[in-house]
């Protein structure tokens, strides 16, 4: 069990480091605002 948990902690630390350095915010990822749609928008006013 210890090995599994240690590996898990390493993963968490790595993911957090990558997320912070690349500007990923977990709460926004989870709520979906990270997705970008390449649609031509017609909001020209």
């Amino acid at each position, binding site marked *: *069990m*210890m090995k599994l*948990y*240690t590996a*898990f*902690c*390493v993963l*968490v*630390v790595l*993911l*957090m*480091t990558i*997320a*912070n*350095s*690349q*500007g*990923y*915010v*977990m*709460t*926004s*990822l989870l709520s979906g*605002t*990270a*997705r*970008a*749609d*390449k*649609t*031509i*928008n017609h*909001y020209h*006013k």
Partner: protein
Amino acid sequence: MDESMHDKQPPSVTAASPPPEKPKGKPKTLKCPACAGTITVKAVGITINAVCSSCSSVIDITNENYQIIEKANQNTRKTLLDIGCRGRLSGVEWEVIGYIEKTDASGKYNWDEYLLYNPYYGFRFLVQDSGHWNFVKVLRQDVPGAGISSEILFEGQKFARFLTGEAIVSYVKGEFYWRVKKGERTFVADYIAPPRMLSFEKNDQEISVSLGEYIENDVVVDAFAVKGKMPYKTGVAPNQPAPDQAWFGKLWRVAATAFAIVLAVQFTTCAIADNTEVYHEQIEVSPQQKDQTITTASFNIPKAGNVLIQSSSPIQNDWVELDMSLVNDRTNEQYELKQAIEYYQGHDGGEDWTEGSTSANTYISRVPAGSYRLLMDMDAGALMRNSPVFLSLTIMRDVPAWSNFWLATVSIFIYPLYTLLKRWRFEKTRWSESDFPPAIYRILEQEEEDAS
């Protein structure tokens, strides 16, 4: 021999005739004075009370008189480990030479004690209680505080008092090196430091302290080749080691290390974040504009990173809903988000209450560098009532967000906390049998008592 005594110079015996051979050590057999059956004594010279295996009478064998201490006329009871069977524990071979069954003062609760013998290493006890086994050694050193203190310091370890009570001999079989008698009462105090336990015993004749070590059932089965069924384990033994004892400490050390790193990463992030404002506008939306899409001027995001959109409106008991899109001027990629600003307050039954907030903050992850505009469609209670809405809009970039940190922290500690809860439940079960449980294991006891 007589002749040599008359000579002036007795002849010396030469080395050719060696001295009489010393008999090798072997068990002693004697006839039971009660039933004439055969009694075999293994610990010759040490055993003082032997129980006849034919009639169960207890015989005193300190001298050749072989006095009957307790006459009986019954068959011996079958025990899980037979008298005479041998087993290997901690590298030493032991022979079962005695068996005692003891009960507590109420008589409803009993346990087994097997006397083990090895002529070189002496005696040990194998105690079986509620299916749990302990390997016990009588200590010769003085243990200060035993029997009176609530805690004993022994070999650098703290032993906590677990129980005090009485032990009464209810049945004996085999041979013993002390005067064991049915009905004999002993005051007992047990102290634990799992997997070890110090047992203090006192009766009219003497005081003794023993050190016990919890051993697993399969160790006993393997050592003594037990054929019968081992008694079923119930509850948690006083000195039973917690199943996670070996790695519990390590688990928390790993968690603490991971947490420390995560904290350091977060502080670094906060320190090097640009945290700059890229756009700000105070927007007034009149009722006539309510179906129009609001567009901001273009603003530049020089480097990829997160973006924070902060909206606020000084509303009271009202609501504003925003449908937003962050649009890249060049690629037309857009990030859609919704924000709801709701703020209500009131005064009910003498108390002020508030609900919601006058602002809304939303993060967007990893927005590439470029020129952007924010487009908004607004719905608001004020607009529906033909009143204007005042919105303050601020857009920041490279903001040190804390949600990653909290998510990482929770992830790290979920398993250790679960293990802690399991451990607490295990310890609570352990101490439920004790009259001296530490305070933290007494939580919920009152509720359980009330419920029952």
